[in-house]
């Protein structure tokens, strides 16, 4: 059995960076992590396989990602005015498949939100499709399957 430590470390570093950017609301840098045709998806139905033809919590192409960031940074949305930083951690990282063209990786994705003292945990399984790009990657897909997605959520003022 061969373990590609180098790939694992590169993927791990990329995902940690992505998570840290979002916790620190470095949204402009986050937008640069994406391929133009990449999609960001937070499904309602975590068992769906055709998200384009399914209603989701979020299904963002490049344009919608840009608009979402403008909304979060613009200061016009009352729900973002009081939002406190999030804390997220990534574990159980597993490379599902890897080729020269793309790497599919799955992980446990835990986000904590502080809503005015009410600490809300959002456990999820996340799936990333990464495209190698010089010495790092670009995001082709980020899929965040929240444990409570098909039951109920609260309103969200950040990016998972």
């Amino acid at each position, binding site marked *: 059995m061969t373990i590609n430590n180098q790939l694992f470390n590169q993927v791990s570093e990329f995902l940690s960076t992505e998570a840290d950017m979002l916790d620190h609301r470095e949204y402009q840098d986050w937008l640069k992590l994406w391929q133009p045709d990449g999609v960001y998806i937070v499904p*309602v139905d975590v068992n769906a396989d055709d998200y384009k033809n399914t*209603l989701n*919590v979020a*299904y963002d192409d490049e344009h*919608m990602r840009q608009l979402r960031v403008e*909304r979060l940074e*613009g200061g016009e949305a*009352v729900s973002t005015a009081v939002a406190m930083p999030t804390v997220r951690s990534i574990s159980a990282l597993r490379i599902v498949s890897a080729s020269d063209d793309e790497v599919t990786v799955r992980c446990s994705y835990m986000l904590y939100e502080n809503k005015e003292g009410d600490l809300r945990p959002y456990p999820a399984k996340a799936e990333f499709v990464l495209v190698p790009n010089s010495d790092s990657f670009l995001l082709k897909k980020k899929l965040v399957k929240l444990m409570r997605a098909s039951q109920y959520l*609260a*309103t969200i003022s950040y990016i998972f």
Partner: protein
Amino acid sequence: MNKPIDKEAIAQRAADLVLEDRVHKDLYSDPDIFEEELDKVFNNTWVWVAHESEVSGKNNYKTAKIGRQPVIVVRERKGGINVLLNRCRHRGATVCEGNAGKTKAFTCPYHGWGYGLDGSLRALPKPEEYENLMDKSEFGLVKLRHESYQGMIFATLSDDIEPLEDFLGGAKKWIDLFMKQGAGYPLKTLGEQRFRFPGNWKIQLENTTDAYHFPIVHKSFLSSMDETSAEIFDFLDGDGFVEDLGNGHSVMVMIPELVDLEEKLDDPIPERFADLATELAAEGHSDEEVRRLVRAVGGSGFNLNLFPNISFSMAFFRNLVPISAQETEIHHIAIGGEGAPDAYNQKRMRLHEHFQGPMGFGTPDDGEAWERVQRGSMAGDDGWIMVNRGMSRMKTSADGNPQGAVCSETGMRAAYQQYKKQMAS
């Protein structure tokens, strides 16, 4: 000994806390009043439970709630729909879990009592111990009275209230208009987003008939649209209105040009739907079909608010589920056309995700405002919440109903007067 709770006195107190022009903060937070609301409001009227497309195939079911009571809406093999209390007649366990699915029978997980989709008790383990004790035919799942209008299924725990169509009354005309969003195809649901907020259900009920908040709370949504579309949503100075339709129902017309989606089919294609029009035309749809689809894709120009738990809100259904005095669950149900081109239904889902739901560009700001009402209304010893906006400028509509300006609180007053009537009954 504890004093027995005088339930009638609590309900009457709630009724007394609704005046013509104001309502009291206790209606948002008093747990005793909440308990009485479940009985007086939700258990004594028509409560929306499903759209027929949610149980479109045989043996399909969805679960829902009437107030706090769990129910099952299920389509039998022969096509008939039943609404059943989700409660085993033996020891009370639910016999069906999950939001929706398909089944040939309901089996209680506790002792294995098996029920047909019509609710009848079919079989149970070791029946001999019930010899001379029980007639199986009397122990089916409780079937509720239900009626439909335009595919919307309403159920009630009351056998003596008026027929559904009488209850809907003046709202029927607006339901008919709203259903044109199928764009020539039968309307169907396209999935739903669910979320909860820490506040009373009536705060949400008010919101669907509140145009006054739109340019303030939804500024960031308007900024995310192209200029022409943002102008269309700048409707407070327009010719819109709010009309009291009776029985607690109201309609708020925000964009009069979008009231009837089968009219104005020759108008220019709006900029924000130009891509959709191009895509549909490239798929070979006729110009007439493209225009019909584009005209309907963004939804209707009005919110129809039905008391107590369902609203037809521009382009989706909003279903509210009371959880406790200070917690409410909201379902935002997307809709489209059964058999309509994929591009049409995809566009409707993407538009829905843009504004609606936990990560939409609209809902989180609404939620923040509602939470603040719940918290802020606790302050002070006055406690009155004002709903008097537009009261001195009321007119009579063409249909003979009380009508106020688009940003008046006419719809809230209509809902609260129905609430008052039921709480005092």
